[in-house]
């Protein structure tokens, strides 16, 4: 029927034709965009290039817990402070959301009707209200706390006010590095013990108290070392001087608001994932393990959780990715993360919109890819292995 089209009905020809067409159109569009952009930039006297990164920023960043930041520092440093702040709130948020989410997911399945209903209400409210609104709400609660002079005192060392949470700052003296080394060594050795114990149990059936020995290694050994070295750690307490506290460690309300909102919002999603994961393990598994006389806690730890994790981990990964991306909302409360510090203030000051946005997007892409990469490795390690 289509003999008059001849070569056009050839699948190979068509595939090459369409792909060339698409590539051509794409190149044309790209050329158009680049030429208009360079024209626009020229007209607005914006010089392209990366040299602006070395210019002094000229503004202060109120929250930079890891790097000392002065207004004479460069935009490049603004970027690093931003990345660190983004990572800080993402990592702490992920940890808190995971813990809270697992607890809530298990409580939601509790046989106590009232408790599970309460968690249900929490989940529905926190999932169905925009995260940005929650961040702003937490922030507005935190800045309505009492002023510095009337700050609330907790345990005599923490001070809570509308300027944030002031806590003692640990000062590490010489010798503390040995304690850190001991902790790292203990972590590695308990990991090795765990592997060895598993192998031995597979071979001989004998069990080894991995948990208690690991606890002993990780906590007690460094603690003993700590005291042998003469407690090389002291605390600098915050003191009220004038209108503000001097010294100590300050956690700004912007960070607390971000941390609370992100972890509470994400925990609601995680709890639903955990619930679905646990419910996906068939009832027979629980009955069978009860029938062979396993203790209730062991049933959960050895039978239910490992199987549930297979269902839980893939959606959990996307929740971690979401949380990291959502941490960019810090701009609404002035948390100096990547988007607010570098993509916001630096961009406005230098006018280098394309470069700044490209760097910010590339950074988020690499963070996302890194999280996916590690979670995929973890996912592979817990998936069902056919022998």
């Amino acid at each position, binding site marked *: 029927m289509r003999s008059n089209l001849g070569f056009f009905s050839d699948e190979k020809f068509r595939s090459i034709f369409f792909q060339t067409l698409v590539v051509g159109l794409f190149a044309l569009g790209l050329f158009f965009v680049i030429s208009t952009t360079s024209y626009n930039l020229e007209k607005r006297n914006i010089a392209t290039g990366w040299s602006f990164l070395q210019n002094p920023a000229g503004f202060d960043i109120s929250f930079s817990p890891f790097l000392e930041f002065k207004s004479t520092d460069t935009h490049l440093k603004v970027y690093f402070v931003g990345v660190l702040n983004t990572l800080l709130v993402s990592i702490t948020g992920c940890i808190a959301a995971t813990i809270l989410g697992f607890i809530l997911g298990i409580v939601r399945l509790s046989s*106590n009707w009232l*408790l599970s209903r309460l968690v249900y209400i929490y989940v529905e409210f926190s999932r169905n209200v*925009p995260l940005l609104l929650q961040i*702003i709400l937490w922030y*507005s609660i935190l800045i309505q706390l009492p002023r510095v002079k009337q700050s609330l005192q907790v345990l005599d060392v923490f001070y809570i006010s509308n300027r944030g949470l002031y806590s003692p700052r640990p000062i590490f003296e010489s010798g503390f590095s040995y304690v850190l080394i001991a902790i790292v060594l203990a972590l590695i050795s308990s990991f090795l013990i765990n592997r060895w114990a598993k192998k031995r149990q597979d071979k001989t059936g004998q069990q080894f108290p991995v948990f208690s020995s690991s606890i002993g290694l990780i906590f007690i050994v460094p603690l003993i070392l700590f005291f042998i070295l003469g407690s090389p750690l002291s605390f600098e307490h915050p003191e009220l001087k004038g209108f503000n506290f001097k010294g100590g460690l300050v956690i700004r309300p912007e960070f607390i608001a971000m941390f609370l909102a992100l972890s509470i919002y994400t925990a609601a999603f995680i709890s639903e994932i955990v619930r679905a994961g646990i419910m996906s393990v068939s009832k027979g598994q629980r009955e069978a393990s009860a029938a062979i006389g396993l203790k209730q806690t062991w049933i959960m730890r050895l039978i239910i959780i490992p199987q549930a994790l297979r269902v839980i981990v893939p959606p959990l990964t996307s929740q971690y990715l979401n949380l990291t991306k959502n941490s960019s909302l810090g701009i609404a409360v002035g948390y100096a993360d990547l988007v607010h510090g570098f993509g916001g203030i630096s961009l406005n000051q230098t006018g280098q919109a394309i470069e700044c946005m490209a760097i910010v997007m590339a950074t988020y892409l690499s963070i*996302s890819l890194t999280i996916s990469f590690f979670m995929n490795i973890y996912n592979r390690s817990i998936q069902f292995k056919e022998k």
Partner: protein
Amino acid sequence: MNEVRKPPVATTGIIGWLRLNLFFNWTNSLITLFVIYCLYQFIPWILDWTIFSADFKYNYLGEQIANQEMCSRNLDPENGGACWAVIYVRFYQFIYGFYPKVEVWRVNIAYAMLALALLPLLYAKLPYRKYFLYFTYIFPVIAYFLLNGGLGFTEVSTNKWGGLLVTLVLGCTGIALAFPIGIMLALGRRSKLPVISMMCTLFIEFIRGVPLITLLFFGMVMLPLFLPEGIDMDGLVRVLVAVTLFQSAYMAEVIRGGLQAIPPGQYEAAKSLGMSYWRMNLLIILPQAIRISIPPIVNTSIGLFKDTTLVIIVGILDLLGIGRGTLADTNWLGLSYEIYFFVSLVFFIFTFGMSRYSLYLEKKLKTGINMGAD
């Protein structure tokens, strides 16, 4: 002689239910009592604050409230709860933004038409659904002229839009535009042509890898640089471009999930009937794939609806933006809880409704598929 057995403890009825669900053993009972105690402390307080000692229009002296100083709780901290008068006074702005009052009937008609346009999408058994669907297709055009002006209506520029109007325009347009783009991207990603599949994959993964806020900045800051002079894009349109790109990538992944669930036999059968690629997809594959991906589509749409609040960061006044604007007004300073509570409630009603609807669809779909299998 025979031992008399006690009758079994009630396992049915209210008492049985209570025993089983609240007082199963002593830890359970302790938890129940503790929760009841907490609720007993909390519920009366919250009810009192939100309803019983709250001001709705008048304060406790009987005066109509015009600013925050007249709220009962600011006149007498002992004697007042929430001051909902701020919502009452600013209600127009929350719903319509700064839309001119003489033209507001147009927005009202658009709201009513939106409900009418959604009806055939939400309710499959609607009588004369076909004709309603025609209306749904032409609704965006009508809404555009009605809200924006033209065709004899006076023009109302988009910087006068605000509040719920902007939230709904962004949400609905974003979802409606992202749907066809998402389908194309999903088909493209599964395409056998390597260049097309690679380009679609790159686009989807790029958009999904960056936060929406960077895309909004992209739309606000970079889009004007990319376009030739003279094309001056409206702020709302720029934001809409960003939101649509964002949503279409997520939509594409959801639809791809649906496409993957279609058994290969369907493709083979369609091809053996001599169908072309487009006929096969339009008539055989997509109707089935979209049907199974409707619940996740609704779920991503809920996500988008919540994410529309991000536009306040680039200066568009949606519902939350109007709320923040009201708080910045010295007349209503310090009423943040009332305003955020109200905005949350509006969002909650929409998103909770959508999530219930998605659950209902999932249930319906499951029974539908099972019936097919039987």
